[in-house]
């Protein structure tokens, strides 16, 4: 049972809003696909490292977690290391004591992201419905592809062949593939498949297939799985012995969802994934930089450049990252997802500096890049007049003195100037307010506080 839990250890994020009952009469939103192919490359990142250093393939290897600090843990382990007792999440000191010959590798997140991007790019040539679910796992919508590629096994074969074109052979050879109605069925099939032997679950066989699967396959809370196991529920078929009201009574909504997945009533469609083109700016240092203050200065300059790039098209920034190429190889990356999208440099720099404080680069940095990869709505004009002080606190109930420019408006103009090269705002000034000729009463004067 522990092995089964290990196999499904990575949570499956099924969006609760995308469920479609098995009734084919229910219409799917346009481009969503009911038939799903799940491709899973377990320990994707470690395998990429082994491809890069083939000499390590037969040794005990562990990839370190991206979190720095004194108590670093192991993220992924090779089979040899696993046989020696090394487990993901263990402290490095524990892992080394269990396996003295263990080779520890620093993670290189930008390398992994590049490989993932390549993977998604080639898959999107085969089907327009591609939905990534974390590095190394992707769902493909296969509705209607039978006419192009033939039977389901041929469709899977076509996809795997496409992977061989862009990814190293050993990596593709380790890929597991599951083809089934809905994302849950496809994921369970992929998790149970052997590398090179895709598991195809036909529509009619979905319920029978799911009934045999361990209950740990369900994307539910760990505590729910523990309770189910204590109740003697081992497989999804066991779960179906309980009526839905009893499961809802015991586990709340999650119990109802679990039953719907187990019975095949709930089908989660694959939805096309849209990723806006990121805005990326980079800076190469002539000598590697280890000083935090210098990195902060570089970060400010990079943010200014990124915000001024025309491809941002006035959108606010919802998520961004700093990527550093480390001295001696490898990379370091810090992501920040903002609660409210922002379009000005200072708050963005503050967020990134805070994240860098928590996860500093482990070594000196040779090159630094800022990437804006998720965007919010364009900064609306109303926010220009939404008065806030320098710390971002709303200023209400106080009238502006004559000629005073609110801080929020001043920073908005600064930002617009960065982007456009000049201030596009104007102040309305009286010229001859009593003139009988309308166009002579007022005029616009460039506003640049």
């Amino acid at each position, binding site marked *: 049972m522990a092995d089964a839990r290990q196999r499904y250890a990575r949570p499956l994020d099924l969006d609760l809003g995308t469920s479609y009952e098995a009734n084919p009469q229910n219409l799917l939103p346009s481009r969503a696909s009911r038939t799903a192919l799940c491709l899973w490359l377990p320990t994707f990142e470690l395998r990429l490292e082994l491809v890069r250093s083939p000499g390590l393939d037969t040794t005990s290897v562990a990839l370190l977690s991206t979190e720095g600090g004194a108590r670093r843990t192991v993220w992924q382990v090779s089979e040899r290391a696993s046989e020696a007792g090394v487990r993901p999440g263990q402290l490095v000191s524990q892992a080394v004591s269990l396996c003295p010959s263990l080779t520890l590798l620093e993670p290189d997140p930008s390398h992994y992201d590049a490989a993932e991007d390549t993977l998604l790019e080639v898959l999107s040539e085969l089907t327009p419905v591609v939905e990534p679910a974390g590095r190394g796992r992707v769902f493909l919508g296969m509705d209607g592809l039978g006419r192009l590629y033939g039977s389901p096994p041929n469709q899977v074969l076509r996809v795997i062949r496409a992977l061989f074109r862009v990814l190293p052979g050993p990596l593709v050879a380790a890929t597991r593939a599951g083809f089934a109605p809905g994302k849950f069925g496809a994921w369970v099939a992929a998790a149970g498949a052997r590398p090179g032997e895709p598991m195809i679950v036909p529509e009619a066989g979905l319920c029978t297939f799911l009934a045999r699967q361990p209950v740990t396959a369900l994307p539910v809370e760990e505590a729910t799985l523990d309770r189910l196991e204590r109740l003697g529920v081992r497989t999804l078929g066991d779960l179906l012995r309980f009526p839905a009201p009893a499961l809802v009574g015991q586990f709340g909504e999650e119990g109802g969802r679990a039953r719907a997945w187990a019975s095949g009533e709930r089908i989660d469609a694959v939805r096309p994934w849209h990723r806006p083109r990121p805005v990326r700016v980079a800076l190469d240092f002539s000598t590697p930089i280890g000083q935090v203050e210098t990195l902060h200065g570089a970060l400010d300059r990079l943010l200014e450049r990124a915000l001024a790039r025309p491809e941002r098209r006035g959108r606010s920034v919802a998520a961004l990252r700093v990527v550093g190429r480390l001295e001696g190889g490898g990379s370091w990356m810090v992501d920040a997802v903002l609660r409210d999208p922002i379009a000005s440099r200072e708050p963005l720099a503050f967020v990134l500096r805070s994240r860098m404080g928590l996860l500093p680069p482990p070594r000196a940095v040779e090159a630094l890049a800022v990437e804006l990869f998720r965007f919010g709505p364009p900064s609306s004009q109303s926010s220009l007049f939404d008065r806030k002080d320098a710390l971002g606190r709303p200023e209400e109930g106080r009238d502006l003195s004559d000629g005073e420019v609110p801080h929020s408006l001043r920073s908005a103009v600064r930002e617009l100037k960065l982007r456009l090269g000049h201030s596009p705002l104007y102040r309305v000034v009286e010229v001859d307010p009593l003139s009988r*000729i309308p166009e002579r*009463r007022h005029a*616009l004067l460039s506003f640049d506080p």
Partner: protein
Amino acid sequence: MRDGRKDGCARATRLKPLGSPRGARVLVDDAGAPVAVVVVGKRSSRAKRVTAIRERWRIDDEWWRHPLSREYVTVVLEDGRSLTLYLDRVEGGWWVQGEEG
């Protein structure tokens, strides 16, 4: 003449007129009252029928340097919008000076 877009100082001090008139093509009846209007430069160049005339007035000014004589009329169009037009009695031609709704 220097391009204001490349010269921040020129831009900062230059005034842009507000409410400048735009050209219009106006069909009038025998009495000279507008019956249909096409605003020049609008994306839709379809003529809009005038359903009502709200107000008319006339301005004669600056006779001592460049004589200016305008006959203003505020009309209501078929789509409900209100438009203020004038006929330039010196240079000729119809112009739109204001738009509501």
